[in-house]
């Protein structure tokens, strides 16, 4: 009856490590109930702190090959914003070895295992250590193998020296992996809801578009959905109106571009 989500209610106890782990996994699972970015950020910060991290940055994006890549970036920033400004000011993203790793790998890895090949990379990591990333764990996550699907990068930082900090973070790699995946799913769902609202679509219309995409025609759709053929045509006209297109094919293309159709 009293089932609503409340970030404040996620309380961690320190009875034993198994209890701790259960609580953390419960908290990660409860990410699905977060309705706003602010709730997700608060919960993620709590989880990261509980697992020994002091700072984090989460970014999710479509790969650069995707035509919608530029507008696809979404963040959760759990560190000193000054670090982000410094990072941006020096254009370190051009040379960020962690980001390059995340694009092509899916296994979590500690920062020291990634080779720093240029003086710029050394400077970047030295500066990062001043902002709570003295040691770090990189957790890449991918929606699926398709090149145009969203990927996520969770970068956890700790104030401890790499010798102790990295082993502590690596010890919790399973939980951080789960957190990375949940964050990616959370963003995927959130962006899908936004796209549904943007085109004023309801579930039934999405189902109809899915069927059209698989090559079904109005008669077949009518039979599948237990509707009259005229009702299907009426719904198709509504969909065209919502997408502001003349052909239903264009609506399918737009829905696919928005990530609404698989």
């Amino acid at each position, binding site marked *: 009856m009293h089932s609503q989500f409340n970030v404040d209610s996620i309380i961690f106890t320190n009875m034993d490590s198994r209890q701790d782990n259960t609580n953390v996994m419960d908290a990660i699972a409860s990410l699905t109930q977060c309705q706003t970015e602010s709730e997700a950020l608060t919960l993620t910060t709590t989880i990261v702190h509980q697992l020994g991290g002091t700072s984090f940055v989460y970014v999710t994006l479509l790969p650069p090959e995707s035509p919608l890549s530029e507008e696809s970036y979404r963040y959760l*920033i759990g560190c000193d914003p000054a670090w982000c400004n410094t990072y941006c000011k020096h254009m370190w993203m051009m040379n960020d070895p962690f980001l390059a790793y995340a694009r092509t790998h899916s296994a979590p890895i500690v920062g020291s295992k990634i080779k720093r090949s240029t003086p710029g990379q050394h400077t970047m990591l030295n500066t990062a250590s001043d902002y709570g990333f003295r040691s770090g764990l990189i957790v890449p996550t991918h929606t699926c193998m398709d090149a145009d699907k969203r990927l996520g990068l969770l970068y956890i930082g700790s104030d401890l020296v790499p010798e102790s900090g990295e082993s502590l973070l690596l010890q919790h790699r399973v939980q951080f992996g789960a957190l990375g995946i949940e964050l990616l799913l959370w963003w995927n769902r959130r962006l899908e809801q936004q796209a549904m609202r943007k085109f004023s679509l309801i579930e039934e219309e999405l189902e109809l578009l899915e069927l059209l995409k698989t090559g079904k025609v109005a008669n077949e759709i009518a039979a599948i959905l237990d509707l009259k053929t005229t009702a299907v045509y009426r719904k198709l006209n509504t969909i065209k109106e919502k997408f502001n297109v003349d052909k239903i094919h264009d609506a399918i293309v737009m829905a696919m571009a928005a990530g609404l159709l698989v």
Partner: protein
Amino acid sequence: MKSTPLKNACYLLTLLPMMLLVFGVLVGLPWLSVLFFFIVLPILRRCVGNDLSAPNTGASQLMRAWLSWVPRIYCIVWSVVLLWSGWLLSSSPLSITDQIGFAVSLWVVSSLNLPISHELIHAGSRVDRFAGRLLAASVGYGHFPEEHAYHHAQTGHAHGGDVASPATSIYRYAIGRYVRTWPIAWTWEGKRLKRNHQCWFRSALTYTALLPILIAGLFFAFAGLRGLGCYSFQVVGAAFTVQAITYLQHWGLSQRDTPELADYGFTWEDCCWMQACITLNHAFHAQHHLTPSRRYFELQPIANGLRLPASYPVMFVVALFPKFFRRVMRAQLQQWRELHKNNERAAHNDDCIGMKKLSILAKNQINSQ
């Protein structure tokens, strides 16, 4: 007002408009409820201020039971007041002016049924949901649960007409939406019946549509045309109020036009303490849309949310003058958007990681290759 215990006690103020209706007739001031709602309430806001109390998220079982009973008590008192109204119109010789005053006051009261009904139709208990349906049906709006379920599914959608486009006046919106709500409710209910393999006569919509006809018949039988006219006025008035409040709560807010309001439920809120007590926090609408299962006593205004320029009664009157209303609302929305943009920029500099730059540079690289 910061005290939560005080507010918990004052939720009983929800009965105040009904009390004022009865008291007004007894002392020869049938306009009392109208005066209270449109004049005294906005003035009281100056003295009482906004609601700063904490929500009852960790309330005891006893307190939750009490708070759950407030809307139920309202239903009981309303049924008595409705009977009393019929009796009054049939037995008491009111002058024409008093009759008009009484009808308008009764409209205020019956319009306030709908926030209470709204609370009940969202409740977990089937009995409460049934009571909420009957409460809405008693003022001729029995399809409220179905149309409201559709409303939740449509929030933030620019297409479909549930969100008023800035160019639409309250009159056009109210008529258009009211006409549309009936087929929407029937379609919604039809799908439910189909899902559950039930016949149409199992639909709650059928008997709730009959309830206002029955009440109108009784008013006509006992109070003649005067009774029928008065009750019909409630039905039309309540229907208009539902549309007007929906208009105020979602005016111009959609994913297409105001995407930054997604985390605020695409709603306009108002924090008046007195109004919050009387309408059971109905104006704390953002949290309600983000988590519809949250009970009224667990709601609070969302931090940095979009606020109406004034409370519901004032904005209701302002909305009757569309040009002025648009100007006021646009200014308020613009102000909020600028503030929100500044806050966002201050919080993380829009693109503080510089990924957009990276993406553009990567693309340029690919193109040059």
